[in-house]
């Protein structure tokens, strides 16, 4: 059988990995620093994800939020939302997680060299983008301007407060944020994330925009970026779908003819436009 000639792989066996550190970011989000057995390096690209599992509680795709330049461990930011993630939130330093991956197509950083980088992050969308943000900061000289736009529903949902403080105080990073609804202590912008785009002065042809957030955010952000005349091919989006395997078999993540776990989660915008079911 010619089909049998290929060497097959055990695709579903996780590597039992250790939690090095757990940070509480908000009421519903925690950050986990994880190390693979024998200090193996994950070797991911920014924007890729891993399949995380706890036996008895299931498996789910989670974006890697640390930069590939940070080794040997890597970081995940997880929202408590169901079977697996609830249980993850009960784990502490020393706990074990099954890891498969990295999977998917991340950001190809080659074409971004010397470009101005615009990051548009909604809610937990900051987590997957943070791997790229951290990477560009680590390799700051390879890039032009770094502009980070970040919006959350309300101030209590803000992630990575320490990093944000650093970003805010650094001259070579332009950071703007907003909340949909403010509270008493909030002194910053109020309004949806799209309100942060019009004031920006952009060198449109030299700007790469990367957008990650909840499904409804995409439509409006794309309109705003359009009016800024950023060429479609300079815009990248990361999509989220249900996934049961991460290796292009189970079919759950399929959008038209694209498997998010293979071709995505990061897509150049022209490709998204071909995928009618995408957003």
């Amino acid at each position, binding site marked *: 059988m010619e089909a049998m000639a290929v060497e097959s792989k055990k695709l579903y066996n996780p590597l039992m990995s250790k939690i090095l550190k757990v940070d509480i970011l908000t009421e519903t989000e925690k950050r986990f620093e994880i190390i693979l057995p024998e200090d193996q390096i994950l070797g991911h690209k920014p924007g890729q994800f891993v399949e995380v599992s706890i036996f*008895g*509680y299931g498996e789910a795709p989670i974006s890697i939020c640390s930069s590939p330049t940070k080794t040997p461990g890597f970081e995940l930011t997880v929202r408590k939302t*169901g*079977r697996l993630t*609830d*249980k993850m939130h009960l784990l502490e330093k020393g706990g074990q997680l099954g890891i498969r991956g990295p999977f998917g197509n991340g950001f190809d950083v080659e074409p971004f060299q010397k470009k101005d980088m615009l990051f548009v992050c909604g809610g937990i969308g900051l987590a997957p983008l943070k791997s790229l943000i951290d990477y560009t900061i680590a390799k700051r000289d390879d890039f032009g301007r770094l502009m980070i736009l970040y919006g959350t529903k309300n101030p209590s949902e803000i992630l990575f407060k320490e990093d944000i403080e650093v970003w805010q105080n650094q001259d070579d990073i332009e950071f703007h944020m907003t909340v949909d609804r403010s509270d008493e202590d909030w002194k910053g912008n109020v309004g949806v994330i799209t309100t942060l785009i019009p004031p920006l002065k952009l060198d449109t042809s030299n700007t790469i925009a990367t957008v990650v957030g909840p499904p409804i955010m995409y439509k409006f952000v794309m309109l705003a970026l359009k009016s800024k005349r950023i060429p479609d091919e300079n815009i990248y989006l990361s999509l989220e779908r249900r996934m049961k395997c991460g290796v292009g078999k189970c079919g759950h993540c399929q959008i038209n003819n694209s498997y998010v776990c293979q071709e995505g989660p990061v897509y150049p915008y022209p490709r998204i436009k071909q995928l009618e079911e995408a957003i």
Partner: protein
Amino acid sequence: MSKPRVAFFDFTSCEGCQLNKLNFENDLLDILELVDIVEFREAMDDRADEYDIAFIEGSISTPTCVERIHDIRRRSKILVALGSCAVSGGINAMKNLYPPEWVKETVYGEDKYLFPSIPVQPVSAIVKVDYEVRGCPMSTPEYLHIFKSLVLGRKPEIIDYAVCVECKQKENECVLDKGMFCLGPVTRAGCGAICPSNGQYCTGCRGLVSNVNENGAIEMLKLHNLSTHEAMKRMKMYCANEID
């Protein structure tokens, strides 16, 4: 870790679901290892005040039932509805289909006396229900799944697809091929398609899947020799409260 304190309560029902639990002969001892059963009227005398998990069987059909279920809810951390009667009103809810005048006529004997009765309702119509084990009688594998999930402290998997899925996974001969009709295509799975596996049509005891195509379902039943009227009647046997 102390064992979860578990209680079982029965409302208007045939008590088949309760009995089904006593039928876990092989697993009963394992189950008792995992939890403390603190109240189970059908099998024991003890009573308790507070419960980690309360399992409720039966539908709500009298004002007393309403008071009792509120009281149990107040004292329970997790409340699980067991069986069609508790989940949807079940067979009992068929009563709601008939005009009250007609029911009076049929049910009144010459000796009338007052026994207050209200339209049959599922438990969730009165209090918050955390999880549901469907079926008439409740499905044993599903019950065990929810039971184990709760002991593990995780959310159970909630099935929202048709009985046909399990029926096809088992490679049953479809009862439609024997000239019968079947409610399996629109009924929520979880029973392991036990009726079609035994050559009988699915009566829909587990209620409808969500987003059901109701008109499509009636057209489908008509293809299999039921009139519109009969199709509606069959679909309402267990879903009197779900379909208008």
